[in-house]
């Protein structure tokens, strides 16, 4: 059974269709990617899964239960962690305190949350910056902090919204290695929105392609890169 199941979800903003009836599923332990040109509706899909937006139609199921009418905090408690494309650090708080807030999702005790937060910071290579205010981090580190906070909430499914954008190739490779290790060690399911194909190809076992709010292709990376509809939307229609 799929861990995440999205069935025909749709969302319009003042009559402008952002997502029109998208369905896909992610099996437990998988890493899947959602790709597509700008404005394809990827982040809107994420926001509907994470509860930041209510779908106009369709449903979202997580571990068998409907979650599309829940608040974001309830969805987080159910086991979905997310990052924001435009990073939202708690700027005045230290890096460690940022992650402690996430870790408190699974425990009431600050000491336990602190220990968990330190582990996560270590995993993401942010341990050396733990006492710095989040406002002083570089963009690459802020992206890592987004991931650290979401991971600290102890999710079963992690939604990553363009965490590789703006990173140098070596930084992308580092982060890819981190996600691979966590996925391998804990079986964490990951759904990522990504434009950096280097990361998508290295991580995802299945790719869903969105275009103008519709799903135009789904499949393994090798199939997707040769899929005519995908080539058409990224490169324009080829010769007949």
């Amino acid at each position, binding site marked *: 059974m799929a861990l995440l199941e999205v069935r025909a979800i749709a969302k319009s903003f003042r009559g402008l269709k952002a997502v029109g009836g998208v369905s896909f599923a992610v099996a437990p332990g998988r890493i899947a990617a959602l790709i597509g040109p700008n404005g394809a509706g990827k982040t809107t899909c994420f926001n509907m899964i*994470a509860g*930041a937006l209510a779908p106009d139609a369709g449903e979202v199921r997580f571990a068998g239960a409907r979650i599309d009418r829940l*608040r*974001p*905090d309830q969805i*987080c*408690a159910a086991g979905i962690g*997310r990052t*924001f494309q435009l990073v*939202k*650090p*708690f*700027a*005045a*708080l*230290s890096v460690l*305190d940022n992650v*402690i*807030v*996430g870790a*408190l*999702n699974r425990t*009431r005790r*600050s000491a336990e*949350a602190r220990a968990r937060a330190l582990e996560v910071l270590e995993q993401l290579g942010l341990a050396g910056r733990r*006492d710095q205010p989040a406002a002083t981090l570089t963009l690459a580190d802020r992206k890592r902090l987004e991931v650290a*906070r*979401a991971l600290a*909430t102890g999710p079963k499914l992690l939604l990553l919204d363009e965490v590789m954008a703006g990173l140098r190739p070596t930084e992308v490779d580092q982060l890819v290695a981190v996600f691979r290790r966590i996925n391998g060690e804990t079986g964490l399911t990951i759904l990522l929105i990504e434009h950096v194909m280097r990361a998508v190809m290295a991580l995802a076992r299945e790719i869903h392609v969105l275009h103008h709010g519709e799903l135009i292709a789904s499949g393994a990376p090798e199939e997707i890169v040769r899929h005519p509809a995908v080539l058409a939307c990224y490169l324009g229609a080829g010769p007949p």
Partner: protein
Amino acid sequence: MNRRAVQWLGALAALLIALPALAGSYLLSLATLILFFAYTGQAWNVMMGFAGQLSLGHALYVGVGAYAAAALFVHFGIGPWAGLWLALALCALLGAAIGFLAFRFGISGVYFALLTIAFAEFTRIGFEHFDWVGASGGLFLKVAQREHTDLVNLRGSPAMFYYVMLALTAAAFGFCAWLARSRAGYYWLAIRENEEAAQALGIHTFRYKMLAVLVSSAMTAPAGVFFAFYYNNLFPEQIFNISRSIEIILGPIIGGLGTLFGPILGAAVLTVLADGLTELVAAVGWEVPGVKQVFYGVVLLGVVMFLPQGIWPALARRLGIGASGGR
């Protein structure tokens, strides 16, 4: 907190406990006033400094707390310690009403602040026509023998009032230090910094914002009870006045928003400054109307311009207490 900080705190505690023996009556009343503003500032700081919800109407809770305990005492002879419970309940109820209205209907920022002013102003106008508590003519408590200490009815010497206020301030400090390290404390900071991110990390933001308002409003109630029994007279026009609310919030802002020592330090600086200026103006003979306010304003402007984080964070760095002790 490191050893240095503990030493400073110990020295301060010793000084504060010994103060009535050392200081004259004028200094003692000044110290009591500082503690009063340190306490109310600490309570307000829970809402604004921790959770980022700006209340410009905290005079409401001082006033309602004061009137609740005073009315019970005047009409039924019920002592302030019993009256305190009514004061706490009424203030928490008002806080809940404001919080629910605002957070349920998505009123935030400036509009939230306006709502808090509106509640305080409506209550002031209401009390001005509330005959049972003396309306605009005021409510008066019988001034008792000041030599005889009667803690049960909160009647006694200035030293007794000083110690009561000191105990309240110390308790508020300890309570806030505990809150800051609790889950709620972390969640409030997260909400203050970014509500959307806070929600995505599993925080029920409505519930925690409500909690901040409830804690802050209820915490302010004892200050009101103290006010009633210390000054023995209450006038709606004075106690609910918006200038009272502003007085409460200046201390934590000048001292350092969201810090534990900020409200205390800010209250001390501002009270001493205001009083010192009165003395200075009188001594120099510049008794031009408004000259004191101008000086006061210039000093505030200076602090806000040069120490935008407040005095405490800068001072903590100087004393080598560091960032963790500063929170």
